[in-house]
């Protein structure tokens, strides 16, 4: 089973891009599974189900979404494998920009959009900087020069990645992206694998539900600003 982690800032077009790739993979008669991670709510699982792919949804609720991701992804891979998926795609949003779901030796994709501003690439951490494939979306609504400037900013922070432009609405570029998916890592289990980069941690009183503000309530891993 080929497994890929797809991540990206909220509303960058991850679901649209994956849907277009699914169409191209289905044209090649591939059996596909998708695991959609979100925090509070998502209806995207229905969009995937409508395409006739197997789908699981995971809502992290009150937990850190990326910690939730990493605690569940092994079981998701097992599920995909047992159900005979030839492709399993995990979709998760990198909400704090310091998180990243990417796993060593597992093809990592980051979706980022042209409208997010040219300083965005440098603000995103390992989710973008350690990805193997960077997909830039919404290219049809900006000028050629902006596309080029934005791509060069992405290239600056991840010079080793393959950078592709995909239009999530018309599907332009999705066929080409799919041919890269065909070369994705082939695995049966995530046992023994490690994340590409550690996740941010806190382990402080607020992790345990503290709501009061003030020095006396702060315990554990607390860091102070230099003011």
């Amino acid at each position, binding site marked *: 089973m080929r497994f890929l982690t797809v991540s990206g800032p909220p509303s960058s077009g991850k679901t649209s891009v994956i849907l277009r790739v699914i169409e191209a993979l289905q044209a090649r008669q591939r059996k596909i599974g998708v695991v959609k991670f979100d925090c509070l709510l998502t209806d995207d699982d229905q969009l995937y189900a409508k395409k006739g792919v197997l789908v699981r949804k995971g809502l992290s609720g009150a937990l850190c979404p990326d910690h939730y991701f990493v605690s569940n992804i092994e079981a998701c891979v097992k599920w995909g494998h047992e159900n005979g998926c030839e492709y399993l795609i995990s979709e998760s949003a990198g909400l704090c920009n310091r998180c990243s779901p990417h796993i060593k030796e597992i093809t990592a994709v980051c979706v980022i959009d042209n409208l997010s501003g040219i300083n965005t690439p*440098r603000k995103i951490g390992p989710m973008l900087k350690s990805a193997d494939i960077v997909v830039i979306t919404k290219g049809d609504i900006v000028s*050629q*020069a902006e596309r*080029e400037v934005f791509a060069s900013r*992405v290239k*600056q*922070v991840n010079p080793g990645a393959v950078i592709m432009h995909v239009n999530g609405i018309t599907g*332009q570029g999705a066929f080409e992206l799919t041919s890269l998916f065909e070369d994705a890592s082939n695995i049966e289990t995530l046992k023994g694998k490690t994340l590409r980069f550690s996740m941010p941690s806190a382990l402080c009183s607020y992790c345990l539900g503290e709501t009061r503000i003030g020095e006396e309530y702060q315990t554990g891993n607390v860091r102070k600003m230099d003011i």
Partner: protein
Amino acid sequence: MGYYDLLPRPLSELLEEYPYIEDFLSSFGLEVESETGSLQDYLENLAPDLLEDLGISAEQLRQSLHDFINGMLALDDPLDKVNSLTLIGGVDKSGMAENLELTLKPGEVICIVGPTGSGKSRLLADIEWVAQGDTPTRRKILINGEVPDSKWRFSTEHKLVAQLSQNMNFVMDLSAEEFIRMHAESRLVTEPEEKVAKILAMANELAGETFLPDTPVTALSGGQSRALMIADMAFLSQSPIVLIDEIENAGIDRKKALDLLVREEKIILMATHDPILALMGDKRLVIKNGGIARIIESSEAERKNLIALEELDNKLLALRNRIRLGETLEDV
């Protein structure tokens, strides 16, 4: 020369010579302050805690810097000149063979016509992807008569195709001059100011209404935006092929715009249903059911009609202008 040659050199000297290295470091949130050691020393002395906070490992930072420097140095390599682009036909949506081999040369204008959904975008995408029988149409694209290097597919700085799309907005909050300068800098142009001035002058020549260098790009009219992007494509873009999705007949001298791209030796592919633009082209590819159904060469009779069409067009433009100036059109 590459990354490993730069490693032992003093960092301060490198930053002077290759300012983009500082830009690279700052994009990871790293600061450089009066460094005395070599680039290697700098990288080795970065505190692991700092890197952890910035979300990058020392190993990955080195790898990225390696790729970045080598990529930037490669920008100086002369670009392979594209003397011809050959399209070898594949099949249409019903599997019927296209049976054609078409060679396009710099300075040629090829129009692509056909109803929405007929496969115009796929044709343009086949070219951009330098298809090798691996797309749904099974078309093949040759450059200079040969199967091209796969770098054309993935390179961001050596892109084969520059595309001027129909819905074109600017989202950056910059003046026209700042915007073009930023683009020039991202391409490491040696004399950016000269290029910027040239592009702005040309854009003003193409646009019906002139604009100033400090006009915000978001305040440009549709015609001015297109004029700016066409001038930018002509003088700044390295891409030998230009794809244009219709040039609306408003606020831009379309003939001059095409002439400019032709003069700059671009291969121009243009999706259009505008009769004047279509007749300005050397050939028209008629797309039907996903395939190229026919190639029409603009005939002598058509070219004669072009003159009449242009007269009509000028008349309409004059009327537009009168409306703009608040006149009435009782006598047309």
